[in-house]
């Protein structure tokens, strides 16, 4: 090592090396930023690539997914099972059998509330009734429910558990309504052979324009009846509905109350008098329809089925023009694209996107508000359920102790009314949230009908020389607090259920 001469260049070399290193890091950073900006700019351009020519004859969502990968990715996520306080679905392990190869199912609602078994005595729902899972499971869960074993189900059921558009077109030789009729007639497992997929893109979207459209004839006919009762004749939903209406109507193709009309089992929405629960009940009364005869009381009763569309239509969100898709399929940002979230699910699992766009409160507060509505609804539902159990017990008792069918006709009618209204609020998949006041009103009516039925029986016993059995005594109107006349007869599951 020399002492003096190489000093200046060596220092210079060190300075240069250090500054080169700093410059290299800075250059790397700036280039990374540049690339990032480039990527963001590319994202912001319209990224739609039509790699497949979609036609009205393709129902496989995987093919549509090639053109719309972002939507398809989200759609596939409906396999997720996540619980909410009152709904969602929980993955419950299931031992696969020959008849039912599922290794995972959803929780049984019959086990959660055994009163449902009494309410549906003599009907297939008393055998197997589970919390519904995501859209991805709609076809397999229906195929494998125990209800299929207990009763021969009609092909009409497949209408809302599968992508039926192509099957209907094929069976009707191009005429959707004819194909719809054909599908209704078939036994379930024959109809099952006509379909391949759970609800798919083609059921709600036009293949050419991607515009929303209604493909299920039952809804076309049903909504035309609703509009006719509001003074709009000859309503054609696919021509006359607004874009925003369509964002609810496509969901209303299935999330509604229905019945199978006549021997040909034609799937029909009972909306002739309107969408409210008691108007639907009045329609059923008028045409003398019953789903089954109650096993314990022989009352001609009805089963309400997931009337989400009807309940929503009575609520404040519907009035404000907020539709199903706004909360269950809110807009999300994927890269620079704004798309509708096709992972259809409870808004309680997605509060930020579903609620905060309009409600500018913290997530926790929004969730608490929604759950408070549900808690109150559930409490009232339990009271109404207890009242119905009391009425069923009393009618059964009166039947055994020899009151005539003539005498029991009115109490049985009260059971029919109370049961349908309760079931309407119970089967509706929002625990009251879709229309809180309407939910309370329906449950209040149900409770009143149940107690009126009991009162009528009590009067009958009094008229029969005052020799009525103690269990037929009417309950105080504020029933909940009053001591039970026959505490041993019916357990009170509602206490256990108040979590």
């Amino acid at each position, binding site marked *: 090592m020399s002492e003096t*001469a190489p000093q200046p260049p060596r220092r210079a*070399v060190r300075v*240069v090396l250090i500054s080169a290193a700093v410059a290299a890091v800075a*250059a790397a950073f700036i280039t990374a930023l540049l690339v990032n900006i480039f990527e*963001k700019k590319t994202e912001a351009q319209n990224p739609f690539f039509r790699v497949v020519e979609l036609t009205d004859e393709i129902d496989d969502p995987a093919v549509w997914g090639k053109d719309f990968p972002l939507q398809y990715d989200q759609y596939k996520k409906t396999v997720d099972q996540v619980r909410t306080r009152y709904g969602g679905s929980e993955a419950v392990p299931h031992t696969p059998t020959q008849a039912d190869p599922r290794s995972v199912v959803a929780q049984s609602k019959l086990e959660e509330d055994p009163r449902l078994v009494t309410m549906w005595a003599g009907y297939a729902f008393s055998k197997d009734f589970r919390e519904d899972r995501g859209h991805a499971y709609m076809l397999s869960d229906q195929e494998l429910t125990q209800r299929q074993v207990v009763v021969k189900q009609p092909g009409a059921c497949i209408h809302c558990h599968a992508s039926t558009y192509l099957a209907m077109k094929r069976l009707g030789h191009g005429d959707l309504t004819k194909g719809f009729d054909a599908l209704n007639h078939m036994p379930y497992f024959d109809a099952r052979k006509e379909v391949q997929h759970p609800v798919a893109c083609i059921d709600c979207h036009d293949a050419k324009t991607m515009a929303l459209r209604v493909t299920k004839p039952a809804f076309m006919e049903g909504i035309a009846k609703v509009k006719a009762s509001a003074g709009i004749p000859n309503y054609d939903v696919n021509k006359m509905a607004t874009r925003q209406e369509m964002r609810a109507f496509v969901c209303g193709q299935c999330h509604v109350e229905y019945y199978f009309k006549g021997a040909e089992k034609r799937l029909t929405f009972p909306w002739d008098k309107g969408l409210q629960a008691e108007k639907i009940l009045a329609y059923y009364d008028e045409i003398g329809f019953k789903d089954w005869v109650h096993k314990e009381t022989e009352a001609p009763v009805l089963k309400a089925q997931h009337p989400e569309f009807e309940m929503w239509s009575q609520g404040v969100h519907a009035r404000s023009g907020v539709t199903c898709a706004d909360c269950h399929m809110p807009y999300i940002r994927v890269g620079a694209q704004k798309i509708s979230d096709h992972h259809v699910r409870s808004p309680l699992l997605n509060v930020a*996107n579903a609620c905060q766009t309009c409600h500018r409160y913290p997530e926790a507060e929004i969730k608490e508000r929604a759950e408070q509505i549900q808690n109150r609804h559930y409490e009232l539902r339990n009271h109404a359920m207890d009242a119905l159990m009391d009425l069923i017990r009393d009618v059964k008792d009166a039947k055994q102790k020899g009151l005539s069918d003539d005498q029991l006709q009115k109490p049985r009618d009260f059971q029919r009314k109370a049961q349908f209204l309760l079931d309407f609020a119970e089967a509706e998949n929002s625990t009251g949230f879709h229309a809180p006041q309407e939910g309370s009103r329906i449950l209040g009516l149900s409770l009143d009908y149940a107690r009126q039925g009991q009162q009528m029986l009590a009067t009958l016993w009094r008229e029969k020389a005052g020799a009525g059995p103690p269990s037929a005594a009417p309950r105080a109107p504020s029933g909940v607090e009053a001591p039970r006349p026959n505490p041993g007869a019916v357990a009170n599951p509602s206490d256990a259920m108040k979590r």
Partner: protein
Amino acid sequence: MARGSQGIVTLLGIASGAAFGLLIGVGMFTFRYARGGSYLTNDPKACANCHVMREQFEGWTRSSHHAVAVCNDCHTPHDFFGKWFTKGLNGWNHSFAFTTGNFPEPIRIGPRNRAITEAACRNCHAALTSAIDHAGESGAAQKLACLKCHWNVGHAH
């Protein structure tokens, strides 16, 4: 020996100069490509350069205030230093969030920027707001917030 080291120094000088120049060049290109200059203007379009503010920008074009106020009128303080400090701070925060992609949706205004907007309301509507602020002096220790009710005059969401 002396001549040789002189040559090395010259070479190194040229190399480091070139490297530095390259850095400045790439930096300037990035700045221009990212439309960096637009952020120094008052033009609302600059705020929607990247797509995150697209909804807010479109909302503003339809709002009651679009004829009288641009983004900077409500979202930066009305003094020179405050305006440029806020532009710098928000510019840094927004670029960082957007580049890393680490931000919650839907985007919402933070407390600092809310206070700036609240002050902007009171700056233009001083005659009205001072009357309101002084009306209930006996009980109301805290000011009413304009934005509590008029949250959508600039843009919805």
